[in-house]
């Protein structure tokens, strides 16, 4: 987009970004159909030890962003542009075997559904050792005690017995713990968590989140947290990127963003969370759905659902404008222009 869009937010941690995504654009092309741009010029930085959130509704491009960074999009039917620089190398330009060497070793990913993400016919222990065998070139025998320690570390009781268990013999929370153990087996420097708690009970969600927080702090792993759940963001993320229609519409530190949301979309997301302290206040949903999007080309995609649109919203494309640690893409922000 413009030059401003590609400038990273203020460097609060004071060191070089570990992952630096610039102008990431993913377009799905199908024969005989209009190409569809799922991610449209997304830029963000992740520093070592930092937790960065990507927040948005279903279909806003969160998961596609993560899959593109991991190189896990199908080989055909899509076009990936932009750069994702990890430790000096552009991941998007790496060959498939080089990328495969990095996945699981340098960058790992946790998926949404812990049951379907585990191989149903292989014992959990073997699935953990598989990663170690692959990247550390260990024998299975040597990897087994390590796998047991990993299961123990993610809080699975009786890890010796659980090593031999099949995924269906475990509870949902335990499965997600096992997946986290697999992802952390080789001590990756970056962990991408794609809605890691969506498929879990609320009580288990809290456990998994605190586990993730603990592990990230312990090991200094950078974490990209993809979620639609603002509660998760509030509890975990240092910096939050709000996505809408494939673009970042607002960015800010956790406290700033929740304290003073400036984009009407962020504001709407916060207003649609049920609150216990407000007496019987009706929930304020954001009307419409993502499918009501305008194209970004000559308008703001959020305009049809916006609570405070102005004329210019449907005439020009708003740019992402940086100010300090925050960034905003809006003509008529909440609380008036500054």
């Amino acid at each position: 987009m413009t030059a401003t869009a590609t400038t990273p937010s203020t460097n609060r941690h004071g060191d070089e970004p570990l992952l630096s995504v610039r102008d990431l654009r993913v377009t799905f092309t199908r024969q005989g159909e209009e190409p569809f741009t799922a991610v449209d010029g997304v830029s963000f930085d992740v520093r070592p030890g930092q937790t960065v959130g990507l927040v948005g509704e279903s279909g806003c491009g969160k998961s596609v962003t993560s899959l593109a960074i991991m190189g896990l999009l199908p080989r055909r039917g899509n076009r990936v542009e932009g750069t994702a620089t990890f430790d000096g190398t552009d991941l998007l330009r790496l060959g498939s075997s080089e990328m495969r060497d990095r996945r699981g070793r340098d960058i790992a990913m946790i998926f949404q559904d812990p049951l379907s993400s585990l191989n149903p016919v292989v014992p959990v222990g073997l699935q953990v050792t598989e990663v170690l065998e692959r990247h550390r070139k260990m024998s299975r025998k040597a990897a087994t005690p390590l796998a047991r320690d990993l299961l123990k570390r993610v809080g699975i009781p009786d890890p010796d017995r659980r090593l031999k268990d099949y995924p269906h013999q475990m509870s949902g929370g335990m499965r997600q713990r096992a997946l986290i153990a697999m992802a952390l087996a080789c001590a990756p420097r970056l962990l991408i968590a794609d809605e890691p708690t969506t498929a879990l009970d609320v009580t288990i969600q809290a456990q998994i989140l605190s586990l993730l927080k603990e592990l990230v702090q312990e090991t200094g792993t950078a974490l990209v947290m993809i979620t639609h759940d603002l509660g998760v963001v509030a509890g975990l993320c240092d910096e939050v990127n709000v996505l809408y229609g494939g673009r970042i519409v607002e960015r800010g530190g956790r406290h700033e963003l929740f304290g003073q949301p400036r984009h009407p979309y962020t504001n709407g997301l916060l207003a649609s969370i049920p609150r216990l302290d407000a007496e019987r206040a009706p929930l304020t949903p954001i009307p419409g759905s993502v499918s009501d999007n305008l194209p970004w080309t000559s308008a703001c995609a959020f305009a049809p659902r916006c609570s405070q649109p102005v004329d210019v919203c449907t005439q020009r494309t708003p740019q992402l404008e940086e100010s300090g640690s925050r960034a905003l893409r809006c003509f008529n922000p909440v609380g008036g222009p500054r």
Partner: protein
Amino acid sequence: MSPTNPMNRRKDRIDDLAATSGGTATLVREAGTVDEKPGVSLIASAWKRLRRNPVFLIGAGITLLFVVLALVSRVIAPHDPAVGYLIDQVRPQSNPVPGPQPGFPLGADDAGRDLLSRLIVGSQQTLIVGVFATLFGLAGGMVLGILAGAFGGWVDALVMRIVDVLLSIPSLLLAFSIAALAARPSQLTVIIAVAAVQVPIFARLLRGSMLAQRHSDHVLAARALGVTERAVVFRHMLPNALGPVIVQSTLVLATSIIDAAALSFLGLGNPNDRQPEWGQMLGKAQTYIYDYPHLAVYPALCIIVVALGFTLMGESLREALDPKSRR
């Protein structure tokens, strides 16, 4: 391309079967969340239902009986099936087939050999043909199915077009053509001909369920951990894709037995009748079908009962493992 086109119907059936493997994940989920008791696996819960299914019990009973009979046939057969004990009773004009008599409860054939012993020992050949034809067909189908399912792209397209061509030829006709190519028909040529017919069925089935696995979450998760392509195919995709193939093989055992019998019946089987085989006995019995129908009835009954046993077992297995037909 109407749905009634037999070739399409066959393909649909194979693809339906393949689709059941995609459902194993949901099936396991049910088992996992409904009762969290450890050890209730897909196979355990299927077995629980099978144990009470009379259809399965009958099929498995017949199959077991037949396999045991084939294994011990040489021991329990009252006479040597190749020796013409009653040859002096055979009168080509007036009495070509000796009737039942003490020691020979079913009588003898036109060479004076004990019919009961020949039927019992014949089970051996039938089992060998059925098992090996299925194994060879399975092996060939797995190679093609893994190739197509693992590589995708043009490999998949090429393999599947070959498979489609093979599927478009009626199976028995294909088996005849292959068997007829052999200069000297033998038991082995029958096995190869029957196996060749099964290859495309297994290939299509496995490819379908491999594709379902390819897009599954756990394969994506394995890829996200940098697992090598070979491990993805052989550890993450293949074992999860095998379910419908294993079920199909029990059904194929039945068709192999029938196909092999048909080949022998038409004289494309082993010409050496010192080694009895049901299809071959049936073929020989044609000469006397009006005067001595029992010569044809016994081997035909054996073929029908055994094929029925395998089919009943296979169908009930398929039903038990198919999440869609669970009651």
